[in-house]
Each structure stands twice: as C-alpha cells, then as structure tokens.
C-alpha cells in the first residue's frame, strides 16, 4: 500500500514527452492513479469496499477514459457508444480473461429486463447465483453514463481487469493508434499495473451502513491522513503551527531541500533520483551522455554510466549513474514493472540490506538480495551527484585514450575521474556546463571566446604543462583539439554573491528605514522553520548552495563582468532584478504591516504579561489546596490558584470546592463561616424564587392538562363521531372555550390530570403542589413525601434538610422581615396582588363573561360555582391538607399552593380546578393582601414556605402574559431537560428534575431573555459537579453572565468569529487561505456550538471539566477569550486533514460534528495554552 502510494505520487513527475498528447495522457493516468489511491485507502480503512461505492464508479470512469483514448474505432469497426465494451468482446477471442468477462457482461446485459422487474430493492440475504449477483451491481448502470462502465466493473470484481488491460497493452498496435495511451510503452504498462491493486481487493455487496453511500466519516479522514502522513512525513514531525510562509517561499523552500542533494544518493532520494535524470518540472536536463566511465572508490576499474547535467532551482547538478542501475531501469519497462518486482521481492526476500533498512524507500528498486548490502544499494552508493556550486575547479586531463574530467570541491577533495569517450563529448559537456552557469556564474577562463568566429578552448591559464595553442586557430579547433592531449583547469566563478550584495545596497539606498528583514523578525522568532524560509525569500536562489564560497573570488569576477561586452545586458538584467525584488519587497512589507495591524487588533485578546508556568506540573492538588488554606478556611493567594488551574487544572476531588471560587461565587479571602452563610442565604433565595415559579408552573400545568384534554377530546369527538348531529353543539362550545381560554373540560380531564399529578408527586422535588383531586389521600401523601425527603437527605448529603430547618428557624424568629421580603421581592408581586384582588372581586361578584366561561367549563356539575359536592369535597380537606403539611414537613411548603392556585380560578389567570366557593374565600383573604399572609402565618408558624407559597400564588395571580411566557419557557426547558445527556449515568429522573429546577429558577429571574437552547448543556456539568441545586444555580448564573452574550440575543458570537478569522490569519496562513477561498468569517458556523456551549458537546464530561477550569482561570492569567484559543487548537489539531481534503465550510461542519467527543482533550488544551503564549510573544515582540 505504502509503496503503491509512493509510486503514484512520485510518478506524477514523469518526463513530459514531446508529442502533443502527452499532457492528456498524463492527465488520464493521473486520474487513474488518484482513484486507485482513493479506493485502496477506502479498502484499508473500511476493511472492504462496497461494489456500489463511489470510488469504484470513479475508478471505472477513469479507466474507461484511458481505454477510450486513441482507440482505432474505425479500423476495428467499433461504432457503438460503448466501444470499449465492443473492444472487450473483440479481444475475447485471444484473451481468456476477456472471454470470461465478456460472457458475464453478456449475461448481465441480457438480464436487465428481469432484474428491473424483480424490483429495485436488493435483498442481500437472498441467495443469488454469483452471476446475477455481479450483474446487480450494474443496476445503476441502466442509465447511460453507468452502463459504459459495466464491463470494467465486472472485470474489476472478477479480478481480471489488470490482465485484460495488460493484454491490450501487449497487443496495442492492433487496437490503438500509435500515440494512444495504451500503446505507449510507459503509460500502458503503468495503467495495467496500477490496476493490480484494486483487482486484489474484496468487494462486498453486503448491505452495511456504507450502502447509504455516505461521504467518508470524520474518523476515516483522520485515519487516512495518518496513513498518508506515514509515507510522506513521519507523524512525529508535526508541522509547526506558526507558519508564516507564503506560498512562494514555500515552494522554493521545498525545491531547495529536495534538489540540493547531499551528493550522495541517500535511500530516500533513490526514486526521485532516477526520475530526476529526465527532464521534469523541477529540473532541466542540459546534457546527458551514456557510457561515461567513472571509477568509484571501491571498484577495480572504471564502470560505464550515464552522465547528466541538470539545471535546478538551486543551481547546476552533475549526476552520474552506473549503467547497472540505468539498464535495470530501462529493462524493467518503467516504474510499474519495478514496482511489481518489488511486490514479489518484498515478500520473498529474507535478508535486509543494511542500507535499505536504513533507507526503506530504496527497496522499491531492490531486486536481488545477496549479503548484507543488496546489489542495487552498492550501485547507489557508487553513483555521483555533485552540485556545481560546490565545485571550485574543473580539471581536464586529455590523453590519447580518453578525456578525463575531475571535479575538485571547495574542500579540496577530488571526485572520481569522469572519463568521456572520444569524440568531442567532453567539449560539449563543458560548453553545456558553461551555458548552464549563466547568468550567475561562469567558467574562468571562459571556454568560448567571443572574439573568434569559432570556439576557443582554454584561453587563459595553463597549468603544469603548456598547452597547445588552440585559441587562435579558428577553424580547425575541433579536430585539432580532439587530437591534442593536455591538461586544463577551469575555475567555476559565481557572480550571484556580487549580485546579491548590489541588490542589498540598492535596497538600503532606497531609504528603507529598517533593513529588509527586520520587520519579519517578530514573526520569525516565534517559529522554528520560518526563519529559514524567510531568509530564502529575500535571497537569490543560488545562494542556497553557495554560502561557504571563498570571498577572494569576488574581485576577478567583478572585474570580468566589466570587461566583457554583454555586461550591458547583464546590467539591464540586474536592474530588472532589482526592480522585481524591490517590488516584491514592498508587497511583502505591506503584507507585514497588515499583519501588524491584525496583531494590534488581537492584542486585546491576551494579557500582555506572560505568567510563568514554573511549579505547576501537578496542578491544583488537594494537598496544595489544603496548604493554601489557613485555619479559618481562608484562601487568599488567588493568583497562585488561577495560575495552577490554568496550567494544570484541578484535581477532581476538590473541584467541588474550587469551582465556586473560579466562577467568582466565593470571594477569595472569605472564611469558611462566611461561605457557609453565603450558601445558606443562597439557598434561601433559591427556594424563594422557586416557590414563586412553582405556583406559576401549577397554573401552566393546569392549562396544559386542559388543553391536552381538549384536543384529545376533540380528536375522539372527531374520530368517533357516530352521531354528528347530537355532538355538534357541545363540540362547538368546547372549541370556543379552548380557543379563548384553555380551561378545563371536566368530564375528560380528571383522569389524565390525576395521573399526571401522581407521576409528579413521586418525584422527589424540593417542593411540589399536590392537586386537590388527591385531597383524600393527602395525609398519606405528605407522609410519603416526608419519607422521600428523608431518603433524599440520607442518600445525598443530609445538610439539605438541616439547613432548611435552620433557615426556617431563622425565619420563625423574625417573621415580619421575612414576609416583608417576600412581598417586596419582585415588584411585580404588588401589582399582581392588586390585580388579583380586582379580578377576583370582579369575577366573584359580577360573574362576568370569563366567569361564565369558567362555569361552562367547569361543566355539568359545577355551573354555579358553588356546587355542594365540590365545595365539600375540596374545601374541607384542603384545610386538612394545610395542617398535615405543616406538621409533617416544611419542604412540602408548596403543597397547599394547589388550593390557592385553584382559588385563582379568577378568570383565566389560574386553573379552574376548585369550586368558586374556594375562590371566594381566597379572594376574600387576598383582599386584605398583607393581612392574608399574617393569619396564615399565625396559624402555621413553623412553615415559612407554607406561607410564602400561598402568598406567591395569591400574589401569583400573575398577568396572563407572564404566565404565558413562562409556560412557553417551561415547555422548552422540559423538552430539553428530558433529552439532556441521558447517556450520562448521573442524569436520572431525580437529577433531571434538579436540572429543570435550576433552569426554571434562572429563567424566572431572567424572564426577559427566557430560556435558550444550550442553557441546559451549560448547567448540566455544574450540577454534576456541585450536586446541589442552589449552589449549581448560583454558579450557573455566574457562568451565564459571560455566556449570555454568545446566545443569539448577544453580539459575542460574531465577534468570536471575527477574532477567529484574525487569529487564523496570523497563525496559520495556509489554513486561512483555504478558508478565505470558501467564504468570509461569517461562515464559521462550525465553531458556533463550541463557543455557545464552551465545548461542552465537543468533549467528554471529564474533559469538559478541565476545559472549563482552563477558561475560567485563563481570564485572570492569560486571556479573557480562552475559548478562542481552544477553538483554534481544535482547528489546528486537524489542520492537515482539512487542508489535505481541501474542505469547505460544509465539510468542516460535518467533520467536527462527527468528531465530537473524540478529541484528545489534554493535547488540545495544552496546544491552546501554547497558542496563547505564541500570540503573547508575538505582541510582546512588536
């Protein structure tokens, strides 16, 4: 697999042939390669490939395109649309594989009528003969575009495709034009061998989830990335995130690193090496000569080989490759064959070559293994690769037998002599060398003189021996030179240094205030690689291999430039070069300034001072926490706490203690007593608020029940309407009622409502209003409740009840105060109390339209509202109920609220459950407003909640709008609470109720914003951690202070998106460009949920805790916008996957939604901290 990838990726650099079709062929073969790669990856990651997989179709299409190209249709008499199918049938005579497939295809084509009749739905379980099973794969192919691929599909599934194509390739002349891809000796065999892999796969027809043909899921993408990363770059070497390279620099940098080879053929370059001997995109072939003899170090005598001269971006390179390698390469009919050899070989070979094992890629070309070093590796070791800029002198030794050329490097070391055959090859090599050196360098003395008409050799210096004067002898030079023996020395001079110096000088002269590279410094300093690349971008390319060049060469070369006539052209060139470079420089400067602006903008995101991370290796452990706490339980060193938490989180056991501090609920410096007081007060407050909304909830419930009953009733009316005439009238009345005020149709309602009540009663909520329907068993009920609560207390902490009682005692002491507080608490209450008074009076006395409707609703029995039965039934026990509640348990405080609430029958404000008699009584007392509270208190002194609730429920004659808006919120809350983290064991019904209470309490306090989806998710981890409702609620309220801006009502989300954009822009250019190409930052919806829920849905609970602590602590340590950096860290973690698949925003959304809860949280968080540090450093260095 890996080897195959290698073949594919590398052979993209195949030499471009001269004929015009080359490009098209290249494209065709490249598409096949790509599809094969995709398919093989799919096979590896999914363990099998489905026959209907998109990859199969795509591959078939690509193969079809290759086979169709250059087909001799006319000559073969193939005129059908699908001529390749006809071709298949044609070759069936000669090729047994083709015959097999041909038969299958015919069978499949003959069957479609029966197949379509048998139904489209494929039943995998139904046993079918293999033939039709295959054929069913062609179901899709009934449409014109697919049917073309039918035979290819079948051949692929039958694993014959590669053989058929091989047959075609071998007999290409019969079927194809000469310039066809299949007829091409290289491409043809590449094609057939590429298909060997796919033909070896298992294809499945099983109806697995993959048969829904979904796109590859996120984890598969990640997996694929790891796989391909293994072959290209080692996974450990992660790309640096701070990546300031612009694409220009990146490309030059890459080419430099690959082409300025070390001169030794390392295994990793083996493959590149052979291909680089041809003309390709990165190197131009200047000269090539075979059978040039070189005597490598360990050999007895010179060996023939292929000498070539290449012009690359980095400069000239001289290469020599032994014939053994070259011939082997030629004999193997191209890479594909050798690839196949390799496949065979890799399994058969037992010995591992020392060199190969060090350089595994070399194995691609390994064929014969003998001993510790395989033969090829020996040859590879012999081959030469010399960068001309590393050579100072070129010695030419000419003798009668041959011409030898010796290269002497900067270090004075001689390379093995290169012996040219006779016949002017040396000369042409040298002339090519000289041409290649231009414009940056030259041979000194020059090989060619401008003066003479012909060529002049070795005009200048003669060493050792006087050389025959050839220079002046114009015409006969070739012949004479050939015959003459002698030694010459040339020096290779590089002008690039002078050019560069001149350029620098000119740049400086242009009054650029800072030297060219300084503005880049702050960027470069934070990155490991960018410093290199930035240097590159300013320097001229040749400087790469040239840094150690002796400076004394400069004077003569400069002189020389002046002497020679083409100097003027050179001058023009250098001016142009200067202009180009300065323009590039200014563009770059503008870019830097822009980045600087962005950085300034971002400076608000992080704190300017970097808090050191020393001594935070273990984070805030319990031990540390205890030592920080003094004997009064005071924690004073908040900086240290924040610092520890920021760098290493909190030990899980003490999170419960620490979180209130982090969220600012507890003050640092508070004593344990103060905190206990705070808790108690908080709890009191919480209960008060709860009692308020619980009343409204009761009203809402009542209405709901009625509404439900109504619709059910209507439904049953509608469905079972045997006598429509009789039912019409009441039905209409009902409908009216429902639409005006959703009140209680008494006949239907009791049952469901009772059920409902019972269900609710079994829930151990802090307080709950039993309905009057259950008055009969109210005593039993309250006893049960008491038990329940006791159980609660036992199973949980027990302090719940204690505190309750405490607070109650407190309250008993000063009832006055308490009552005042209750009454004064929400402003609204006074109004509503006044209102209820008015309304109640209205209704009771006047019996207005509403009252009338009520009475209609309260049905057959209850027309006057003072029905005997109900008043007896319900009035009496209700007082019983009060007493029983009083005695048994204070936290059933709201139990009686049922009755007052029902008293609120006043219009549509409260449920019409109780008879009007009760109403009258209640409203009577309500008429006294305050007074009403007093007597109740007097009667039941111990139950403060008990008094509160009637108060609030009476006062709770809330405006209709209020009730309705709360009802809306309540329904939403319940919907979301019911489905909040049900997979997490903590959320039993009991705890879900707690969550619901927290939500309702919060929403009640913030009814203007109301409940918004996502709040549940934010509250859930707090509840999980704190366990206790009141405190969790308090923390949640703190959390929401920041988080509320993220919700649609706030503006923070857009700001987050914009900040993300800026951060990506300065920290990851490449990613930014990809994203920018797909749209602006308003499309950053993939991080919407991240910010809204503080990554709660992205991470597992345990990790959510750490992430949240980090966010909270970071506020005081490093950044108030830690979420941004965590988001960025998430993005950076998968940047390579995103880039490799060039995902658009849609893909990214899908990717991250699928990756939810699968992230490596600790890595992400620490990356986030690093990113903060990086931005801090950036800004500091500005």
């Amino acid at each position, binding site marked *: 697999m890996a080897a195959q990838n290698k073949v594919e990726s590398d052979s993209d650099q195949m030499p471009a042939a001269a004929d015009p079709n080359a490009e098209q062929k290249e494209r065709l073969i490249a598409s096949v390669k790509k599809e094969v790669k995709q398919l093989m990856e799919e096979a590896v990651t999914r363990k099998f490939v489905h026959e209907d997989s998109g990859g199969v179709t795509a591959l078939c299409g690509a193969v079809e395109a290759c086979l169709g190209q250059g087909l001799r249709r006319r000559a073969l008499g193939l005129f059908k649309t699908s001529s390749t199918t006809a071709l298949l049938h044609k070759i069936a005579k000669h090729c047994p594989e083709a015959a097999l497939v041909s038969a299958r295809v015919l069978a499949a084509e003959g069957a479609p009528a029966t197949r379509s009749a048998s139904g489209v739905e494929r039943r995998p379980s139904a046993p079918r003969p293999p033939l039709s099973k295959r054929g069913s794969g062609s179901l899709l192919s009934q449409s014109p575009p697919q049917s073309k691929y039918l035979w290819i599909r079948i051949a692929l599934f039958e694993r014959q495709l590669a053989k058929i194509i091989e047959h075609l390739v071998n007999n290409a002349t019969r079927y194809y034009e000469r310039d066809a891809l299949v007829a091409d000796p290289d491409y043809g065999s590449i094609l057939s061998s590429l298909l060997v892999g796919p033909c070896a796969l298992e294809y499945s027809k099983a109806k697995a989830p993959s048969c829904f043909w979904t796109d590859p899921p996120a984890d598969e993408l990640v997996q694929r990335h790891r796989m391909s990363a293994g072959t290209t770059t080692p996974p450990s070497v992660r790309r640096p995130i701070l990546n300031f390279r612009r694409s220009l620099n990146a490309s030059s940098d890459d080419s430099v690193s690959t082409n300025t080879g070390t001169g030794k053929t390392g295994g990793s370059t083996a493959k590149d090496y052979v291909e680089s001997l041809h003309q390709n995109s990165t190197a131009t072939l200047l000269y090539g000569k075979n059978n040039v003899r070189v005597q490598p170090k360990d050999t007895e005598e010179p060996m023939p080989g292929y000498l070539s001269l290449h012009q690359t971006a980095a400069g000239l390179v001289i290469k020599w490759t032994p014939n053994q390698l070259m011939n082997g390469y030629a004999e193997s009919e191209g890479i594909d064959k050798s690839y196949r050899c390799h496949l065979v070989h890799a399994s058969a070979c037992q010995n591992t070559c020392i060199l190969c094992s060090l350089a595994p890629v070399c194995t691609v070309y390994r064929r014969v293994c003998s001993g510790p070093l395989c033969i090829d590796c020996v040859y590879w070791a012999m081959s030469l690769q010399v960068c001309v800029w590393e050579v100072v002198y070129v010695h030419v030794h000419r003798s009668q037998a041959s011409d030898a050329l010796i290269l002497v490097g900067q270090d004075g070391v001689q390379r093995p002599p290169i012996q040219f055959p006779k016949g002017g090859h040396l000369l042409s090599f040298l002339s090519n060398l000289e041409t290649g050196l231009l414009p940056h360098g030259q041979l000194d003395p020059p090989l060619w003189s401008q003066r003479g008409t012909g060529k002049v050799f070795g005009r200048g210096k003669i060493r050792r021996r006087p050389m025959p004067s050839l220079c002046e002898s114009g015409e006969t030079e070739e012949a004479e030179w050939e015959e003459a023996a002698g030694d010459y020395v040339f020096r290779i001079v590089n002008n690039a240094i002078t050019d560069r110096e001149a350029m620098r000088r000119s740049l400086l002269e242009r009054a650029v205030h800072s030297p060219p590279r300084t503005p880049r410094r702050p960027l470069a300093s934070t990155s490991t690689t960018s410093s290199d690349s930035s240097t590159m971008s300013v320097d001229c390319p040749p400087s790469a291999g040239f840094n150690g060049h002796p400076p004394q060469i400069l004077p003569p070369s400069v002189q020389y430039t002046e002497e020679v006539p083409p100097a003027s052209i050179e001058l023009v060139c250098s001016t142009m070069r200067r202009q180009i470079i300065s323009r590039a420089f200014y563009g770059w400067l503008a870019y830097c300034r822009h980045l600087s602006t962005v950085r300034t903008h971002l400076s608000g995101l992080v704190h300017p001072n970097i808090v050191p991370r020393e001594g935070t290796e273990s984070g805030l452990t319990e031990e540390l926490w205890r030592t920080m706490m003094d004997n009064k339980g005071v924690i004073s060193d908040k900086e240290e706490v924040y610092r520890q938490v920021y760098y290493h989180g909190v030990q899980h056991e003490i999170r419960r203690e620490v979180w209130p501090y982090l969220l600012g609920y507890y003050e640092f410096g508070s004593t344990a007593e103060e905190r206990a007081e705070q808790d108690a007060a908080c709890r009191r407050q919480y209960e008060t608020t709860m009692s308020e909304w619980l009343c409204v909830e009761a009203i809402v419930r009542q209405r709901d029940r009625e509404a439900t009953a109504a619709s059910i009733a209507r439904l049953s009316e509608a469905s079972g309407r045997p006598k429509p005439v009789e039912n019409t009238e009441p039905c209409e009345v009902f409908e009216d009622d429902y639409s005006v005020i959703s009140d209680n149709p008494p006949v239907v309602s009791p049952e469901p409502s009772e059920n409902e009540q019972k269900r609710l009663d079994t829930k151990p909520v802090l307080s709950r209003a039993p309905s009057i329907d259950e008055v009969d068993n109210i005593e039993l009920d309250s006893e049960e409740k008491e038990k329940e609560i006791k159980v609660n207390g036992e199973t949980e902490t027990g302090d719940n009840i204690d505190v309750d009682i405490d607070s109650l005692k407190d309250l008993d002491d000063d009832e006055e105060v308490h009552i005042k507080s209750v009454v004064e608490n929400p402003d609204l209450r006074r109004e509503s109390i006044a209102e209820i008074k008015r309304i109640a009076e209205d209704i009771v006395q006047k019996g207005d339209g509403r009252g009338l409707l009520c009475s209609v609703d309260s049905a057959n029995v209850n027309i006057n509202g003072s029905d005997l039965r109900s008043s007896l039934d319900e009035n009496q026990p209700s007082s019983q109920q009060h007493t029983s509640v009083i005695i048994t348990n204070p936290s059933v405080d709201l139990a009686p609220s049922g009755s007052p609430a029902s008293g609120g029958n006043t219009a549509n404000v409260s449920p019409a459950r109780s008879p009007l008699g009760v109403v009258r009584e209640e409203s009577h007392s309500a008429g006294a407003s305050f007074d009403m509270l007093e007597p109740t208190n007097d009667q039941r002194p111990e139950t403060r909640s008990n008094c509160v609730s009637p108060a609030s429920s009476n006062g709770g004659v809330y405006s209709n709008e209020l009730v309705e808006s709360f009802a809306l919120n309540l329904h*939403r809350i319940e919907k979301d609470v019911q*489905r909040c983290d049900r997979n997490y064991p903590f959320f039993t019904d009991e705890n879900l109720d707690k969550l619901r209470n927290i939500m309702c309490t919060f929403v009640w306090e913030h009814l203007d914003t109301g409940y918004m989806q996502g709040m*549940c998710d934010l509250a859930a981890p707090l509840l999980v951690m704190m366990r206790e409702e009141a405190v969790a609620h308090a923390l949640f309220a703190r959390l929401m202070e920041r988080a509320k801006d993220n919700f649609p009502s706030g503006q923070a989300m857009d700001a987050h998106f914009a900040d993300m954009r800026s951060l990506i822009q300065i920290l990851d250019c490449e990613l930014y460009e990809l994203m920018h190409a797909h749209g602006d930052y308003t499309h950053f919806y993939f991080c919407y949920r991240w910010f809204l829920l503080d990554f709660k849905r992205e991470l597992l609970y345990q990790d959510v805790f750490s992430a949240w602590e980090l966010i909270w602590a970071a506020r005081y340590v490093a950044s108030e916008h830690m979420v941004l950096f965590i988001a960025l860290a998430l993005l950076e973690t998968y940047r390579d996957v995103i880039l490799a698949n060039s995902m658009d925003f849609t893909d990214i959304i899908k990717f991250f939604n699928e990756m939810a809860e699968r992230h490596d949280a600790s890595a992400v968080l620490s990356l986030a901290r690093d990113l903060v540090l990086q931005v801090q450093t950036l800004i500091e260095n500005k």
Partner: protein
Amino acid sequence: MAKTYDYLFKLLLIGDSGVGKTSILFRFSEDAFNISFISTIGIDFKIRTIDLDGKKVKLQIWDTAGQERFRTITTAYYRGSMGIMLVYDVTNEKSFENIKNWIRNIEENASADVEKMILGNKCDLDAKRQVSKERGEQLAVEYQIKFVETSAKDSLNVEYAFYTLARDIKAKMEKKQEASNPPARSGAHQIKPNDPMRKPTSWLSRCSLL
C-alpha cells in the same frame, strides 16, 4: 475526477424544537433511532446518496435548531436549500400551529421555487395525539404542499418522504433544464422504480399522502 453522484440536493429540516427533526434525519441517514437525542445546537447535516430513477442523488440534509431564537443562523441555510421539510409533532398542537409561521419564514428567506413538504412526526404515539391527520391534510391542501405522517421511531414513511421530496426536486430541475435547452429527448422512457418503501402496506393503511 468522476463525480460519484449525478445530482446534489440540499435539503433543510425545520420545525419547532423537539418535534423530532434530528430523529428523522438519523433514521434516514443511519437507519437507526435513539430515544435520548440531545437538542441540536447550531447546525448539522448528514449525507445520504439515494438512487432515483437510475440517477445517483446525493442528499445533503441540514438539521437545524428548532428554537426560533436561533433563526438567524438557520435562515442562513435557507437560501441554498432546494427542498424543505416542515416537521411538526402530532402530539403537540402548538408545533402544528407554528407550521404556518415556519412557512412564512420560508417565504421570507428561501428561494421562491423551493420544494416543501409537511411531516407530522411521532405518529406512532397515537394515545397522545393532539393533531389529527385530517387537520394536517387540510393544512397541506391550504398551502398546496405534500403531506405525510411519519414516525422516526417506527421508521414509518421517513424514506418515502425524502424520496418524494427528492423526486419532486429532480422533476422540477429536469423540467427547468428542458425548458432552457429544447428537447434533447423526451422523458418518455423514464423508468419509474417501485417506491423504495419498506412497509408499503403500513403507510397506505395508516397515513395518507396528497
């Protein structure tokens, strides 16, 4: 690269929160049901490629947050969508009443020729039903939109709904294409495959379509 599909349709699921949009989508894309779905925050989508009259149609189905507070985000996705599923919950009258609001919302934000379909979900919960099928049909007639009652839990009509919507979009698209370039070939040969229903009898007996 050869495309692995012939058409790409973008569909959108809207409706009040808790009506079962995510469940419907999950049923269609994974053929599974999960009682403990969490509320959708922001936006998500799933992909399934279906075979429609011999064409591979890739459906990219966007799932939105139901709460109207989040409409600012979801409306961003109205524009590109070619088909919209309006989902209500037959056990929740309010969600049914809100369908009108959602339709208004579509008219304001989506392209004019977007294909629509109304789904009355949770039709397995007959005991809790608040909205009769007749009312759903009536509403659908009023707006001239196709309607079907579905159950993501029982996998009832979910496939049918998506196939129908996709087929409508495809028909509209081909019509448009034909209009723009005169008849290349008449669509007379179009093979109409059997409805890809799993339980054809059950939906016929229980739910109707218009």
